[in-house]
């Protein structure tokens, strides 16, 4: 028959194994209530604009744009203007256009000229290299050699929200268009629609 002391020792050993045994097999630290998920999973926390919406929009727009220009002999030089957020939510639309640009650059179908948002940094760097006298003439980027974009991409994000006592329905529409800057003609346009419903 096992003594009371032996039983106590076993209980302590069991609790030590429970507390520390499992943690040893996972390279984690901190022990807080934090867990990592997959960035590509479908996010359904609530009906607000989320990561899956951003990813689906960026993918749909970049694939459609790439398909429209992939057969061109020369990669079109494009600048990206703002995407207007006409929804009631705060949405970082630059994050959407950044994803679209990233995918198009990686696809090798387009080149991007400095857009309005990055122009200050670009001109500051040119001025710094040319006007401070700190750089070798042979290695400075020359002023007046920037390439002007042939096309401008811009868009809008709109939403329609309806709700009753049991359901909230959100409809997003992302519209993107590409305009020939010289002629002003609209060369490409597409849209991505998303419907989300949340039960209350």
């Amino acid at each position, binding site marked *: 028959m096992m003594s009371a002391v032996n039983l106590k020792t076993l209980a302590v050993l069991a609790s030590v194994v429970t507390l520390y045994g499992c943690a040893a097999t996972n390279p984690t630290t901190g022990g807080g209530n934090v867990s990592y998920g997959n960035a*590509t999973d*479908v996010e359904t926390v609530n009906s607000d604009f989320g990561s899956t919406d951003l990813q689906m929009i960026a993918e749909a727009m970049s694939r459609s744009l*790439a*398909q429209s220009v*992939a057969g061109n002999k020369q990669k079109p030089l494009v600048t990206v203007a703002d995407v207007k957020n006409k929804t009631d939510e705060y949405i970082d639309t630059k994050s959407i256009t950044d994803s679209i640009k990233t*995918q198009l650059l*990686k*696809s090798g179908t387009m080149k991007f000229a400095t857009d309005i948002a990055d122009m200050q940094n670009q001109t500051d760097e040119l001025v710094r290299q040319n006007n401070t006298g700190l750089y070798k003439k042979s290695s400075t980027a020359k002023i007046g050699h920037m390439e002007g974009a042939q096309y401008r991409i811009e868009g809008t994000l709109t939403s329609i929200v309806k709700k009753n006592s049991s359901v909230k329905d959100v409809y997003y529409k992302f519209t993107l268009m590409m305009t020939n800057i010289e002629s002003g003609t609209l060369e490409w346009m597409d849209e991505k629609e998303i419907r989300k419903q949340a039960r209350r």
Partner: protein
Amino acid sequence: MKKALLIIGLCALGYGATCAADTIESKVDQMGTARYLKIDEMSARTDNNLLVVRVGITNTDDRDQKAYYRVRWLDESGDAVWDDEPWKPLLFHGDQKQHLKLVAPTVKAKDFKIEFSAEANWRK
């Protein structure tokens, strides 16, 4: 018949020796076995040098069914040429058939594998 259509479609793109084995089943990685959703059409072609895949999925149930999918874009040797795509949700109404148009992100993509996950699967 449907299998033959896919084989013809892929062979026409110049997939060489691997094309003989291409069937709808061979191009789909299912997470579980979908109980009501059937991938019953598939064809591939190139448009402006980009691989374009068309997929038909039928809901054989008379209730709504949900599923998720994404594509792995591969080169001739089966190596991935693009990062993991986001999973995309699909909603099928009862007895509805949907057609998906999947455009490759890069001209380097010469082959593909569809990852498909239905919410209603057969139990193991």
